């Protein structure tokens, strides 16, 4: 339901990151986002068919505050010359890494 979703978002430590270049690697994302704190994991968004990166990823922090800081200080800045956008995510669920490419 909507309220459950809202609750999950409120306590989430996961971010959705969009507008990445298809060539941007997990390593680069790791480097940039760990400037705000320790990362638990990164899940690269993959093209459903070709299983190649397709411009988005999920980032999970250990601490909520670190994720908030990534929204404040990294969202809207550049990685690989593209302005990346981040937003709260309710938490990664297997299968969601497959985008439309």
């Amino acid at each position: 339901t909507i309220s459950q979703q809202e609750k999950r978002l409120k306590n989430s430590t996961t971010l959705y990151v969009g507008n990445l270049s298809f060539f941007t690697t997990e390593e680069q994302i790791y480097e940039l986002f760990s400037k705000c704190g320790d990362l638990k994991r990164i899940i690269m968004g993959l093209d459903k068919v070709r299983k190649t990166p397709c411009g988005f990823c999920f980032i999970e922090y250990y601490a909520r505050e670190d994720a908030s800081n990534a929204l404040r200080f990294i969202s809207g800045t550049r990685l690989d010359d593209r302005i990346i956008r981040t937003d709260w995510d309710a938490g990664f669920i297997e299968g969601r890494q497959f985008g439309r490419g």
Partner: protein
Amino acid sequence: KRRRTTTDQNEIEERLESLITRVGEKSTSSLESNLEGLAVVLQADLPNYKLKIISILRECAVELPEKLSVYTTLVGLINVKNYGCGGDFVEDLWVHLRDLMKANEWDKARTLTRFLADLVNCRVVDVSSIVVLYEAFANVTLEEGIPQVRSDWFVYAILSSLPWVGAEISEKKDEELQKILNKIESYLRTRKKDHVAMLRVWHSDSPHPQEDFLDCLWAQTVKLRQDDWTHQSLLRPYMAFDSVLCEALQHTLPAFTVPPHSPDDSFYPLPRVVFRMFDYTDAPEGPTMPGHHSIERYLVEEQLSCIINAYIKDRKECAIQLVSFHGKAKVPLNYMIVEVVFGQVFNLPQAVKQEVAYTALLLELCKLQPGSLPQVLAQASELLYERLDTMNLNCIDRFVNWFSHHLSNFQFRWSWDEWADCVSMDLEMPKPKFVQEVLVKSMRLSYHQRIVESLTNPEPFTPLMPPKPVPVYKYNEEGAGSLPGTMIAHKLMETIKARATTSEVTAVLDDVPNPTQDPDSMEDESTFNPLKIDIFVQTLLFLGQKSFSHSFSALAKFHDVFKVLADSEESQIHVLKMVRELWCNHQQMICVLIDKMLRTQIVSCPAVVNWLFSGSMSGDFTKHYVWEILHATLRKMSKHVGKITAELQEAREKAQKKKKSMDSDDEDSEESDSDSDAESQIERLQEALETAQSEQKNLFLIIFQRFIMILTEHIVTNENRGVTFHTPWYDYCIQRLEQIFLMHYSQVLAYTGTLEDLVFTGDTDPNILKVFQQFRSLSS
């Protein structure tokens, strides 16, 4: 009906809060008319909401220092019409000031002191009251047996509010002021300054002196006094209401008693060194930059810092507020902003806010002032580069991080050629080291080819260029055939590729002979077999080379094998050695793999530290990633201790609450069971905390002992050869030692006694001991 009234009341209180907290924000009408209007509104609500209004105003006085004079003026306007309310408010502040001091909220107490001083200008508080307050503060310098940081704060609180009220006091109470200033002067004359060496950004006073914060503010105050306490950098909205305010009655406050020092519960702010990177010659156009000892310099810096502290979490708003600073016509604003921002970035022991927040702010400022700010930043970067030789290594690290991150937002465009000559010097010197680390960090945010191309003329930078981040799998290299273990390594690779289980992998490794043992002797399971580790670690991580995620799942899948192979510190160090051998071209990979191995307890913290100081790492000892790993290891340890401390506190509070509620209930307890549960939980946590703390202490002991060993060896070797030990390596190394004290200040502080007894003793070389003494001077 009753409920209805409460709702109305809440609504009104909320409206009051919003009206008061928002006054002074950008608006279509003038600040004066907004203040006048608000004063009228509050006047009407005072009979019913006095306490609420007073508490909101007190919040604003402490929490919104960037709007200080807006609120002092507002209080002035209220006091004119309602003397009783004005009196209640200032008495409330008097009590609150004491409470803040007792709660060690020294920064807030300093803000409030300044607020009280400005209330004199708004005819709310009479001059004698603030003089009495200052006298009480100044008398702290005469207290005996207190740490210097205590008297420092009280002197600072006087000096940092005096510019607001100096003119008034000197007009009406000049003799008293003279006495206070004399007391401060004699205090400053005998004050110890051992802390300065550790806290200054540059080790040299050329081109700009890096002064102790009190010495500098004192010099500025002396000059201000010569200028009859006149300055022009403050917003004074109350001036417009002079004709109204002059009719107000002022309040005389009772004597102020400073809370006494308590050795166990009082914690004071650390001393500081004032950061200076520009003077008027750096900004030749536009208004002149105030000199180092001009009070205007201090006042502008203070106000810009207040803006940054207030708005940093909203980088767009922060940038807008900074560039629209009210005094911008009188100073070269962009230069002052950049100096204040770098002052906060390079602040020691820690940056004031997170480093990445400043990177974001500077990007925003560039966006807002594209025609002017980027040039000032480029000039600042040039200048910082030129002064690298005497720059504190901590600050160089932060400079590297900011600069590479900043460049990544501007396609890595930079006039690299101007720095190309640094390769002609000893590559261990700060300049080539800096360029090398910037290139590495830039590559981590980008990729190898891109960085090479951004150099337009990469040729001269070859010796500093990071290698391509590819693995070196020794069983595939030329000559691997003659290595013991190559056959098994290749077999292991096939096995893992065929989705092997843990036991299948173990079976393959069982065939590996132990080179440290006689082949005929009985196989001893507990002896560590380095060859097994070579084969397993190299092969597994080579297969996981595609990404961090691949490597992490390889570690997770064969966690059990690691636990069996690396069951001692010696074997864990060997695992780490293999990680580094495989990924010698990819520092970031080494860092994240070790992070993961620590978290999954494949390796221990002491193993990581001992490995970093081992001979196999000596070639990388002056590379930043080594220290990145060391500090991350220490941070993990402190987080662990912090977590248990918090849990213990929570458990104690819970137990206390329960006890209280049972006492008050006065009923027969049926919950004695859960009572003892709680007790045993507290006991368990206490034990866990003691264990964690002793592990932490042990880790610091190892680090400091290793530092002393390598530094002493270096000093002795060079002295025996008859050459100076002050080499670039030594300067680097001693500053890394300093950095441990600074970056983990409060953790190390807890173990000062042990360190003094066991490590930094009379036998320690005086050059090394000096670092420890400087550390101690920070809090004494």
